[in-house]
């Protein structure tokens, strides 16, 4: 299982095609306000992340995920429980 830092690095790679502002790829960046992702983009991103990490991220968890760091922590929690 990847560490938090490794998960972040993997997430940055997945997020690259979704933004023109690569400097914004930091743990504290807000996915909606910081990267400007629309709801449609978030849903597409979610499927890409699931495939990359081989994990299912329930939609019920989305309200707890605001930043890239939140996403990395959620992935770790789901991997711990699988």
């Amino acid at each position: 299982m990847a560490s938090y830092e490794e998960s972040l690095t993997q997430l940055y790679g997945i997020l690259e095609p979704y933004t023109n502002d690569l400097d914004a790829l930091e743990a504290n960046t807000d996915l909606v306000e910081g990267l400007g992702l629309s709801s449609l983009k978030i849903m597409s991103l979610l499927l890409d992340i699931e495939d990359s990490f081989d994990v299912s991220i329930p939609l019920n968890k989305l309200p707890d995920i605001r930043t890239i760091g939140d996403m990395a922590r959620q992935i770790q929690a789901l991997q711990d429980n699988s």
Partner: protein
Amino acid sequence: MFAKFETLANMRAAMAENGLDPVSVVIERMHSATMADINGRRTILAGTNNYLGLTFHPQCLQAAQQALMTEGSGTTGSRMANGNYAAHMALEQELADFYGVSSAIVFSTGYQANLALLSVLAGAEDAVLLDADCHASIYDGCKLGNAEIVRFRHNDPASLEKRLQRLAERGVKTLIVTEGIYSMLGDRSPLKEIVELKKKYGAYLMIDEAHSMGVLGENGRGLAEEAGVEDDVDFIVGTFSKSLGSIGGFCVSRWPELENVRAAMRPYIFTASPSPSAIATTRATLKLLRDGAELREQLWKNAHQLYQGLEDLGYNLGPVVSPVIPVILQESRQVVIEFWRKLLDRGVYVNLVLPPASPGDYCLLRCSISAAHSSAQIADMVNAFASLSNQGFVQARTG
């Protein structure tokens, strides 16, 4: 309180720039299932989902009039509190008979059927696995419930299986949700593959046949009938507001236990039941749908004519011929809105679909065809699109 709606209000104001607001179209007068007056102009209705064109059928109108006169204009309450009308019960039996199953429940709308069922079928310890392109009512129903909600990639059995595997490893009971014909692109679920996976992993399967009932299958029962997998589908959801030309929704199931679910669904319990005229119309159109092989044949002939006509113009369309025919446009919202407006000026009313309502980062001019469209009307629709592409208004493309 209202500040959070300003973004939406601004979007709407931007859409209304230079002309008609697309969400404020008024149909001033109906002439038939396919023709109306809009902005004082005789207009072909090309986005109604009125697939079999039954809304003005004499038998439906007569049934509705009779119910109105004998049972009144509304039921004024829910079935559980105010009682069932005999016609509600009769329609449920007729739907169960039509699908050859034991159980049926009628709802006041198709949206409500999904909302009610998905809020309770899968519980807190269970999961719902839904196709990413499922209708908003399916998402909303899931949101109302307590189950774990996971999506799989649209029409991708491999994506579904990965997620089924993960849930099976945790011993979670799973309900798979898919649709017959998808409402935006007109494509169909790979239902045979999904049924194989459902059986392999011991999951339940719900299919929403809103856009495929009356359209697919020898008897019009939808994609499950066409694919020959009806015995393996646990729940079929549908609507009365498309091929059946009325309003309401339903669920049928081979599980007699569906009846136990009825009293658990708050959107069912706390809503007024369908009006007598809506039920009477639906009972009449269900008979016409069941015996409607010729209507289905005409519908598909019309779908092929429109699809071929638009394809010949070079437009990028949905992946398969279907009564739902979207013209897929990569241009900006304002350009597409202007295109939609010019179509309306030429007497053709189609559905304008903008992201995030469209399944991707593109806009749609969504056409839906009816068995009631004449060949001349379809030619007029194609000519309207042709006149705009000839003006270079939107660059038609091939491939």
